[in-house]
């Protein structure tokens, strides 16, 4: 028989998992890029990789403290945003999409190549960089929590830090998007020539947006690797697409959309994979092997994205009025 209790509790765990927080923050970065500014950044995985490797390499190779490693990651993503933005932000939006998707792949392949094996760990990636972060943990050792949410001190520390960062990033984004700065940014999304004709330096604003959303992605990349190891194959293009799925699910030009979208995405993904795996075990799906079952959940994600875009293009939190007009 199927153990429904285990399926539901495994799914509930995803609600506050650091991975969910990391995806929420990366999606918030994309909301700044795509939802508010209209920049089609398909390279969010590249920004996340820079955060993960920037942190891990600074700690392992150079022995930097936590704060310095974080700054190195952020610095790397600012440089990356400048390299992407300087040639492409003057061009039409679709060029940025092509350049970012290629640049993110270049970043991933550079981290994968054997040439830098001593520093990047090549395809095996990096691990053992969590000491500094764990040492900052003020929570006494032990196990806390209730029901499915029972973790040791490190896991709680990680969750608290991750979600605090997400909340701060949400508040920051909410504040700037209702300021005159945000108004210029949304104006650029609608028609950048009109904004230019009103005396705004559109190029500088697009660059600021690219950097800001990229830094969100970078910090998300750091949160993402704290409960696991740094593995280059995690930063494939599909990562960017999952983040886009979360963004569209929640609503592209919203603050809470990416957060709630990420929670729904991970809870549903965990539920589906748990259910399918156990259903195959129980013989409910005789035409399917357990390996095929592992892949089925991603097919379901794809179907879910299609359904959202067709039937609820504004997402869960999006303003329906904003999409009621055809451009």
């Amino acid at each position: 028989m199927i153990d429904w209790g285990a399926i539901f509790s495994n799914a509930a765990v995803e609600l506050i998992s650091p991975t969910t927080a990391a995806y929420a923050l990366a999606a918030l970065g994309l909301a700044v890029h795509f939802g508010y500014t209209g920049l089609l950044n398909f390279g969010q995985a590249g920004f996340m990789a820079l955060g993960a490797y920037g942190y891990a390499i600074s700690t392992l190779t150079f022995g930097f403290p936590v704060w310095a490693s974080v700054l190195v990651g952020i610095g790397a993503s600012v440089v990356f945003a400048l390299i992407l933005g300087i040639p492409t932000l003057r061009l039409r939006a679709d060029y940025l999409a092509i350049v970012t998707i290629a640049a993110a792949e270049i970043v991933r392949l550079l981290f994968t190549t054997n040439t830098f094996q001593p520093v990047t760990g090549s395809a095996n990636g990096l691990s053992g960089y969590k000491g500094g972060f764990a040492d900052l943990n003020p929570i006494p050792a032990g196990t806390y929590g209730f029901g499915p949410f029972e973790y040791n001190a490190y896991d709680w520390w990680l969750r608290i830090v991750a979600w605090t960062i997400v909340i701060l990033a949400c508040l920051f984004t909410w504040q700037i998007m209702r300021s005159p700065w945000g108004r210029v940014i949304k104006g650029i999304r609608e028609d950048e020539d009109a904004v230019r004709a009103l005396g705004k330096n559109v190029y500088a604003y697009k660059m600021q947006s690219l950097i800001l959303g990229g830094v969100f992605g970078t910090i998300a990349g750091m949160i993402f690797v704290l409960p696991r190891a740094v593995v280059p194959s995690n930063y494939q293009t599909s990562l960017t697409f999952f983040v886009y799925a979360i963004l569209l699910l929640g609503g592209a030009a919203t603050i809470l959309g990416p957060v709630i979208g990420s929670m729904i995405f991970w809870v549903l993904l965990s539920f589906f994979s748990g259910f399918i795996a156990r259903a195959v075990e129980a013989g409910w799906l005789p035409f399917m092997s357990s390996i095929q079952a592992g892949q089925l959940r991603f097919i379901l994600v794809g179907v879910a994205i299609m359904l959202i875009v067709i039937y609820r293009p504004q997402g869960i939190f999006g303003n329906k009025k904003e999409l009621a007009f055809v451009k």
Partner: protein
Amino acid sequence: MSNNTVPTAKPVKTVGMHIGEAVPGCKKKDPILVVDGVSRTFGGLKAVDVEHLEIPRGAITALIGPNGAGKTTLFNLLTGFDKPDTGSWTFEGTSIGGMAAFKVARMGQVRTFQLTKALGLLTVMDNMLLGAKAQVGENLFRAVLPFLWRQQEAHNKVKALDLLARFKLDTKKDDYAASLSGGQRKLLEMARALMSDPTLVMLDEPMAGVNPALTQSLLDHILNLKAEGMSVLFVEHDMHMVRHIADWVIVMAEGKVVAEGDPHEVMRNQAVIDAYLGQHHDEDLGEDPDAGQQNVGAIKELLDDEL
């Protein structure tokens, strides 16, 4: 300054702005914009080739010409939306040749577009506020601290409401600009441009796609710009309108300025008639009688219409 926009019987024309004969490129007593040797080619086509041109201050200047004459290209060049192959120009004595569009706008030379660019998914009020110059809160770091920009924002809102009331859009201030009609969007675009207190307003076909009921109101708004001391340069095809409100008319054809002058005089100019109708319009080419009919209609409009 709110609702005194009732149409006046006949606009007061500014006269005597030029020095010497009203020939292409003639000097003005008080030019706001002086253009020298500007050219722009697209492939083999010389879209704009203007030797010298002066736009008078405090007047309404119309830029007319047949399709493909280079009016909009010249507009784009002068506002920094396109880069010229050669040439330079000064605005209020400052050289702005090749300057970026946003810097040109900050100097007080704002433009509107032939295809209206209302920012659809922003409210009418947000559209207006975007037009205000030198906003503290438009800096990313200061944006985080609302107390730095709240007062300026409130001040801009009062100004925007006042302008919206003049343009009869104040009841729509919280609606998305996308819900406005085409004519209302034209009004909004003009009102938004005025938020920056410009000295030269450049309107690219302000009447295109506007229904006749709104035309009169738009005309009055353009006349009001002049009454408030702004200079206006506009591209237009509607000859009635040009004749009605323009103080000075510049005619372009095939990229060159072919005539300049008072709106009534300039339409009698042989170069203008040639530009619109072709040089052989009075010869019987023995083909396409329909085109001939249309030309006769157009020239009647040019010549016989005295408002």
